[in-house]
Structures are given as structure tokens and as C-alpha cells.
């Protein structure tokens, strides 16, 4: 089984969320809890590193949608980085690149956050 795991690191006031494994209907609630926790702690700069993400379903994408408006209301953002082509393809066909900033690597995304602040 490709177990789903979430790890959170902090760098320069940005929460870096490492996703690993299958983010599907089964595991989406876990990811949702993580996001809710970050928001409760008023941490609105979130960088999701998808390097080790092997699958994302609509329910997984739904978690991004569920929080983006609130996060942006507080002048934060969810930015994504290190997306494997297979994962990017899913984001792309559902039109997510128009909604989210997606970067090739973590540094680029981090710099974007830093520039803004």
C-alpha cells in the first residue's frame, strides 16, 4: 500500500506541507484536518510540496478549494511546488493552474512568499 503521509515544516514563516502517497477520498479528510489546523493557528502562508505525491483524486483537490478563499482573505496563499507530471496533469485538466500558482521547486515558491511580505 502506498500509505498517505503529511509532514509540516516551517521556513521563513511559510508552512511547507509535504504530501506523500495517495491523496484520495479515503485520505482527504486527514489532509483537511491538517489544513484546518494551520488555519486555526492563523498560518496562512502554505506551500504544498507534491514531490512524493503519487495520486490525487477530486476529493484531494477539494481540500485545496475548501480553504483557498479563506486563506486569501487573510492575505495568505496556497502555492504548490515539485509536482510530478502525472499529478500536474490532473491539476491541469481540471483547470487548477488558473486558480493556484504552481512552481517547479520549493525555492521558487518560497521566494514568491518572501517577496510579497
Amino acid at each position, binding site marked *: 500500500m502506498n500509505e498517505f503521509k503529511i509532514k509540516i515544516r516551517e521556513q521563513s514563516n511559510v508552512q511547507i506541507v509535504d504530501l506523500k502517497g495517495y491523496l484520495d*477520498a479515503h485520505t482527504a*479528510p486527514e489532509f483537511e484536518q491538517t489544513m484546518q489546523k494551520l488555519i486555526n493557528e492563523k498560518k496562512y502562508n502554505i506551500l504544498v510540496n507534491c514531490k512524493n505525491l503519487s495520486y490525487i*483524486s*477530486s*476529493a484531494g483537490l*477539494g481540500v485545496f*478549494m475548501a480553504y483557498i478563499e479563506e486563506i486569501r482573505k487573510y492575505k495568505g496563499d496556497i502555492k504548490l511546488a515539485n509536482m510530478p507530471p502525472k499529478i500536474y496533469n490532473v491539476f491541469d485538466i481540471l*483547470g487548477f493552474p*488558473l486558480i493556484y500558482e504552481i512552481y517547479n521547486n520549493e525555492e521558487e515558491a518560497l521566494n514568491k512568499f518572501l517577496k510579497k511580505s
Partner: protein
Amino acid sequence: MKRGDLTEEKTKIDVRSLFEFSKIVNQDVSIEFIINFLILTLMGKLVCTKAMVFLRNENGEFYVKLSKGLQGKSKKFKLTKNYLKLVNTSKLKGQNGKFVRYLKNSGIKFLIPLIYRDKILGYIGFSRFEDRKINKEEANYLNSIANIAASALQQKLNRDELVNLNRELDKKIHQMNTLFDLSKEFATVLNEENLIKLFTLSLMGQIGISQYGIFFKEKGIMKTVSSRLTENVDCDFLEGICNLKKPELTTQLSNRLIRKKLERIGIQAIVPMTLRDEVRGILLLGEKMNKSAYSDSDLEFLYSLSNIAIISLENSRLLKEAIEKQKMEDDLLIAKEIQQGLIPKLLPQHKDLDLSAINISSKIVGGDYYDIIDLDKRKFVFAIADVSGKGTAASLLMASIHAMFHTLLPLDMPPSELVKRMNNLIFDNTSNDRFITFFYGILDVETKLFTYVNAGHNLPILLKNNDKIIRLDKGGVILGVTKEFITYEEGNIKLECGDLLYFFTDGVTEAMNAENVEFGEDRLIKILRASKNLSAKEIQNIIVDNLKNYCGENQSDDITMIVAKIL
């Protein structure tokens, strides 16, 4: 240079130019690049001041893809006649009036088709510096470059179409995966809250929305289940769109009032959630975050997703109901155990008495009560009561009667006083619509004197040893009706050996057969007379069997009886 050389030189330049053009447009470039390059090449080569390219869209209309040296709004044109070769627009008349007028107004003098294998992909329109004419070489060059451009365009169109098809296919596959993923997950999640969570997450993720409202019909009334809409939606109003058979865009709704209202709160699509041809819920969806419109494919997906969800939700509800019902039944079984403890498990024994008693509840718990108590080996108490109604409520009152009776009995007061006190207690402590019929008596086995009070209970039957029937009717009104001026009369009757006392509740005499005819007292007395020489237990069994035969499986009330024979 001679004129011939000049022509030859020019031809060479033309050929080289065409070759260059062909090389570039056949590389991996976009349609926009080809058109731009085509216009620039033409403008340079033929000294054009204005140039534009029309392309044909999927509806067969021609629209301006790119223009240079021109201003003004672009329109779409449906052409009734095609132009298969280079034409001078000033010579056009009759057909395609709008198109021709547009060209003339834009100052476009020439029009040449972009043809690939007899299919017109578009047109190039242009006009030359100082209104120059086109000579033969130039016409050849134009035809050639138009052909090369058309061929390159067709290639790119094919490629783009393939890319689009692939994307559509990818999207469909993803949709199928989502549906598959969810039906799998839904099958294992039985908690309604989690189901809705999964449903909404998938919805937001697949369509790319953050605004939605889910409404379900519960007992015929629409209720908000989950909503991220900026405004509350009046659920009554939703009833008006419950007749939808399939998902609709708000703009397509025929009811203007509903359309306006939904548009005002930013709803773009409505999806009915259907179960067995009945709309059980409504899904309202806001604008997509990437601002694109809802496609047919989106609506199709939403409809499938909603239908999977509603089935799972229904299952979860049924399961919840079943669990609750089971839990209630478990509770009732415990109550039954407690209630069974309130009636005697073993009857008192005395050499001069032959006793038997039974209580059969129509529900798990009931409102009938009986008791036989040995006070001091000489005095024996017989009690029977029937609480109005049946089931749980009646059983609670029955328990109270038991408690009151057992508290008051040791106080050794006259039976009439005891019953009066019970009446007052019940009147003070229960609602007005609850009544209890109650009978109790004390038998002194030495003197064989039976003293009793009957508070509105079915008259117990005394079958004398000489076959005469006496009914025990002394007493007063049923318990719990009023407290004022109530007194109870005591009855005293001397019993003899061979007498039979039969106490019962109305479940016995009012038991109905399939034709709704009551069992009745006459039938009961006849059985008593016929079986009076048998033991108390046997008499009781005969009556129970008769009742069962009489009303079959549909016992509608609690049945209680005491048989007491004086030996």
C-alpha cells in the same frame, strides 16, 4: 539587366520566399504564429497596407483571427457562397452581403481562400499600397503561399483537435476515477456527516468551485445540509425547482423568478438529487473559480456524483434508523425484565387455595398489573389493575401502581382507605388523560371472608359451587379521574369450598376475532362453568388457548388473569 533576367530573378526570389515560408510554418509552431507570419510575409512581399485572416469556426462561421492596419470590431459571418480563387472585392455583389460590406468598409480590396483538399479553412483579405493591382506572377505567388499556409494550418488544426480530444479523454478518465473512488469509499462510510464531507470535497475538487449548497428532503421538507453559499437559501423556495429532471444551468431555467433569485446569489448550476425517480435533494453550485462556464461534461459528472451520494446517504439513514430501533428494542427488553420483576414469579401456596395467574403483553411492555400476596399465612391479597393505553407509557404507570400498593399495604388500613389514597396519589402525579382501573381484595382463609374494593375494574367473576355467578361490583370510580368527594365502598362476601374466583383485564373479554367480534363475558363464563372442576392452572390454560384460537395472531391488548379456587 534585361527584362527577362529581371523576371527570372524575381521568380527566384519568390521561390526562395515560398520555400522559407514553407519551412517555417511546418515547424512546431502555433496557429497564431502561422497566421501572423503569413500576414507579415504578404504585407512585405506585396506591399500591403491592410491585411487580415478569417478562419472558420466549428459552426462554419468565418471570424477575424488576426488583422493588421485595421481597426473596429470583428464579427462572425455565415457565407452562402464560397470564393474558390483570388477575387477583387469591388467586383463582388449579390450574395454574402454582410461579409462583402464588411470587407469594403474595412478597405479590403482582395480576398484569397485558404483551401486544403477542397475544404475552405479561411480567407486572406488585403489591400495594397496606392491601390496597386495584382499581376500574374503575384497571383501565382499568392496562390502558392495560400496553399502552403492552408496545408500547415490544417496540420496544426488536426494536432490541436487531437490535443483537445486527449484532454477531454483525460478529463473523462479522471471523472470516472472520481466516481469509482467515491462509490468505493461511500460503501464503507456509513456516517452521514462523513459522507457529506467526502461528497463536497470531491465536488469542489472536480469542478473547481468553493460555493455550493446541498439541500435534502426530510419527511417531505427541504432542509439545508451543507452550505458555503454567501447567503441562506429559503428552503421553501427550493420546492419550486424540485421538478427538475436533470441538471440545468441557471440561465436555462424557464421560471424567470427562480432564475433571477438564483442568479442574484451567484448560482450557476442546479443539480437534482434523484432517488427512484423522486427528487430527494438539490445541489446548488456557484461560479467556478477559474471563471469558466459549466460544460455538459461537468453537469453529467455532477449528476452521477449526486446520485451515488444520495443512495449512500439513504443507506446511511436507513442504517441509523435501524440501529436506533434496535437500541430502543434493547431498552424495552430491559424494561420488560424490570416489569416482569414487578409481578409475582412464584405464587403463594396454601392448602386451601389453588392459584394460577398469567400476564401476556401485546407489546414488549404493558400496562396490566396483578399481584397475589401472602400477608401472614392466613390473609391473602389479590390485586389486578389495567392502565389506560399500552406500551411504554402504560408500563411506567403500572410500575407506579406496584410501588404505591406495596408501600400502602403494610400500613394496615381499611381497603377503602387504601384505594382512596392511591386515587389521590395518581390524580396528583399523572396527567388527566391517564386512568387506572384497579381491584383488590383480602381473603381470610380461616373465615373465608373476602373483603374487596373495585375501582372501576372489570367485575371479577365469582363462580359459586352451585354454579351461580356473582360479580364483585362494590367500590367506586376508576383511579386518577378526580380527587374531590371520593369514597370507596368495601364489598364483603363469604366464600365456600368449591367456589372459583376469576379476575381479569379487558384484554380477555375484548379480544377480537378476524370479524372484529369481541370474545365477550358470556363465552368466558361458559368456559369457566365447563372447566370448574379442573385445577386453576388447567382452567387458565383452557381460557388462554380459547383466546388464542379466537383471535389468532392479532392480540391487540394486554391480557391478564388470576384463577383462584377455594378448596
